[in-house]
């Protein structure tokens, strides 16, 4: 199991066994903080009570360490891992609330005879577990758990249906019935009775609900935006903590550009940036390399543009599918930019991931509230929505319009339904195109997609912007973007850090959600002391277009090897290509 994840930690390996070999912890190390052997894991407390295996980074570990030392704790290393041991000894499970960072860890407490599993608030770092009633197993990857050969490969219909509904498998489900994800922002205790239920300690919805969304209105806006900018700088500064150089992914967008500017403000001296370019886009508006180069020049970074070709894509595809931990329709772009960063010798790179969720960068921020307003009342008329959808689904096929349009009346009246429409890959009534009837029935019953989406909105912030920001962060970003970033970067032994995915920053931005709604990413663009140029801030949003989509299409062929009809969104075809490569994702 452990060595299946060798790429995630090429710098070392460790194992620890206790309780007469009834418990074992393993670790693969990517050395970033305290590069000496003192940072070796699994790490045990000096008194032998606690042993931890930890994946991720604790960005505020120096502050925590200072407080712990003031309280009398004696440290053996300079690593953030040791902070976990001391903090747990003092605070128990509640210690997770003090952590700022991305983390997944397991800590065995020999005195209480329990093992604590914990995962960061956003779910940046993955953690999967399996409890067969006798033995609990956990790992950072589903495929690593399977590699141990002790876990049933029986597919989970909820995972299968979830993948085709949303393009990624929504937690806590996985492709396999016996394996579950520890949800983001949760802890879980394993005692002699087995793995307990996950206990939530952080919810994105709660951060918005707690924030006084519009208190003071315009009068207070200046202060809130100022506080927001300070919080952005603070987050970037926190994310630079490392004993190795920290580079950055750079595109022509506001998010990554502003972060590089803030890295400079935070005191980073020698910044290595990398942009991925494509020959197909050369000389078009979609080419990001020119603008990215200007931003790099503005902030004085050492910049590299890495050209990815179709031939490279095709050559890498088998490796990509092998590295993909669970089926996903995305992650290809992260694969190549991570590959480029690693080629430059980087171990750590900053990513602008999360800006769209935090500052309303997606069309969903406009569409979803609008749909809910328009369809809230008619969607409550019994049978009307389903009837319109049945008629409409025939028409959309004939007219060549997006098949989701047929479901607007049935689903558009609630935030959960409208979100499914906006982000959905296949609609529930279309699943028969990709899955067998039993899998669809059982999967929908287990998954309960609308309830799953709706649960992310609890507690309700009573604010449209906050609701969409919550949905995008707790579902799309968590299950798709962050997971893809994890496998696609760690396959290259690269740690990606996302300062815009930070629970401390979230609390500040949530308090300024009214400003974020009105000003959008201008708040972010203006955050560096040297603001982004107008060419970047005024650039029309192109979406995340790359020729990869065109290349993917080439793999979507019918039985005769011809390209399939292109009347449906490319991602649907791509999902079938990916699904076919995952044994647990059965096709009809």
């Amino acid at each position, binding site marked *: 199991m452990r060595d299946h994840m060798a790429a995630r930690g090429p710098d070392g390996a460790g194992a620890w066994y206790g309780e007469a070999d009834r418990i074992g912890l393993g670790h693969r190390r990517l050395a970033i903080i305290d590069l000496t052997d003192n940072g070796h894991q699994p790490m045990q407390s000096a008194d032998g009570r606690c042993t931890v295996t930890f994946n991720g980074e604790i960005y505020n570990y120096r502050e925590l360490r200072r407080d712990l030392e003031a309280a009398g704790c004696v440290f053996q290393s300079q690593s953030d891992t040791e902070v976990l041991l001391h903090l747990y000894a003092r605070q128990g499970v509640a210690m997770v609330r003090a952590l700022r960072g991305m983390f997944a860890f397991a800590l065995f407490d020999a005195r209480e005879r329990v093992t604590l599993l914990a995962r960061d608030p956003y779910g940046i770092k993955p953690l999967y577990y399996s*409890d*067969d*009633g*006798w033995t609990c197993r956990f790992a950072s990857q589903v495929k690593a758990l399977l590699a141990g050969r002790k876990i*049933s490969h*029986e597919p989970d219909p909820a995972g299968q249906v979830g993948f085709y509904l949303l393009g990624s498998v929504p937690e806590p489900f996985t492709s396999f*019935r*016996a394996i*579950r994800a520890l949800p983001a922002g949760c802890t879980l205790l394993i*005692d*002699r*009775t*087995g*793995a*307990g*239920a996950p206990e939530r300690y952080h919810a994105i919805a709660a951060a918005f609900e707690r924030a006084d969304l519009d208190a003071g209105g315009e009068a207070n806006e200046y202060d809130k935006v100022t506080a927001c900018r300070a919080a952005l700088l603070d987050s970037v500064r926190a994310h630079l903590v490392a004993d190795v150089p920290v580079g950055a992914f750079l595109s022509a967008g506001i998010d990554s550009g502003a972060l590089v500017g803030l890295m400079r403000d935070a005191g980073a001296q020698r910044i290595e940036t990398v942009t991925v370019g494509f020959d197909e886009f050369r000389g078009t508006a979609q080419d990001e390399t020119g603008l990215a180069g200007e931003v790099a020049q503005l902030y004085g970074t050492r910049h590299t543009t890495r050209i990815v070709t179709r031939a490279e894509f095709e050559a890498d595809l088998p490796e990509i599918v092998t590295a993909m931990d669970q089926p996903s329709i995305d992650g290809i772009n992260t694969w190549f930019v991570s590959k480029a960063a690693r080629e430059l010798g980087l171990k750590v790179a900053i990513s602008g991931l999360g800006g769209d969720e935090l500052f309303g960068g997606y069309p969903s921020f406009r569409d979803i509230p609008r749909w809910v307003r328009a369809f809230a009342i008619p969607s409550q008329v019994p049978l009307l929505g389903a009837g319109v959808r049945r008629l409409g689904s025939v028409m959309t096929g004939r007219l060549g319009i997006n098949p989701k349009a047929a479901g607007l009346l049935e689903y558009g009246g609630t935030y959960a339904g409208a979100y499914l429409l906006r982000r959905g890959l296949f609609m529930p009534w279309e699943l028969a195109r990709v899955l067998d009837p039993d899998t669809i029935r059982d999967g929908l*019953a*287990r998954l309960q997609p609308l309830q799953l989406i709706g649960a992310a909105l609890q507690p309700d912030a009573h604010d449209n912007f906050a609701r969409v920001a919550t949905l995008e962060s707790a579902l799309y970003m968590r299950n798709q973007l962050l997971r893809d970033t994890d496998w696609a970067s760690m396959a290259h032994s690269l740690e990606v850090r996302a300062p815009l995915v930070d629970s401390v920053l979230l609390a500040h931005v949530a308090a300024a959600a009214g400003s974020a709604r009105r000003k959008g990413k201008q708040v972010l663009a203006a955050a560096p002391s040297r603001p982004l140029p107008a060419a970047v801030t005024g650039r029309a949003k192109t979406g995340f277009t790359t020729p990869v989509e065109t290349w993917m299409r080439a793999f979507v062929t019918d039985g005769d090897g011809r390209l399939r009809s292109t009347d449906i969104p490319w991602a649907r075809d791509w999902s079938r290509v990916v699904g076919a490569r995952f044994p647990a994702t059965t096709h009809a």
Partner: protein
Amino acid sequence: MGAGLEPGRRRTVSGNNSRMTVLALISDGFGAPGGIAQYNRDLMTALSQSSAVRDIVALPRFGQVGAPTPPKVTQRRPQPGRLSWVVNACEMALQLPFDILFCGHLNAAPLAALIARGRSKPLWLQVHGIEAWAKPGTAIRKATARAHLITAVSRHTRARLLSWCDIDPARVRVLPNTVDARFHVRAYPSELASRYGLVGRKVILTVGRLAAGEQYKGHDRIIGALADVRLNVPEAVYLVVGSGDDQLRLEAAAVAAGVRDHVIFAGQVAAEDLPDHFRLADVFAMPSTGEGFGIVFLEAAASGLPVIAGHRDGSADALADGVIGTLIDPGNRNELVTALIGALRAGRAGMPPDGVERFAFPNFATQVDALVRHHFH
């Protein structure tokens, strides 16, 4: 009617330091024969030893009036009629104060869930084996999903239940059978061996019902393998303990396989005579595909017998994944033949293998206590 408990939430039933009353709806109680009765008795006994439990009131369908019970356990008069048992259970549940409703059989889950909901008390459901493997009807599925805690006798039964029940897996725990201390290595019963004509023979033993509805136990697989086994171990003989309506079919199978003279049908054996029958044998084999757990494997192992079982069902738990005995693919005749020959040639170990003590009663009682505290306290 009060509102039902929200399943899955750990709750304090009546304060952290209080002790709880368990009302147990069970099919087979004290004084009843069979494996389920034994399990129920073990569970009640373990509950009675938990300091978190004040007392246990058992409402059995079958059992004996006046059968001895452990301290803190009261068994009400058994009600063999299905309807009278249901009516009695409802009456008692309305009259008696209790904190946990225990339901000892999946088929009674709808009734138990109704009572638990009506009294706003948590439901603890026990599942044994094959009854929980296939997807049951809607009423049982809904009732099962409402249980606060489900205990399954094996990992296999747990996994099968989770394949049809959308319930938080953290609420489904494994609580295996426990092996009775009367099964241990004992002196060879020469008189009994003579009675069966087993002196000087190498004995393969199976103990189990010969029911037409339980052909999964694999008697016919051993009969089918016996001729090949005897080619290598000519003195091999198959002793079948148990009775039922499948015996004639098995006898015919032995005739057809040409081994009728080497298969002995001993019929039903009194519980007190069972340990001696284990001592007669050189290997215990039951290549079953339908065991919820298979307590008989542990009884055989505790008696010092090498054990052979199938790997497709709860037997894997009873054999501790092969620590206690040999797991084979029950559908693979060659594997069975090889395992039987190997065991007969190796002979009895004389001592129970490591791992049997895992299923000793003290461990069982500790686990019951932990479950009560974790899920209800």
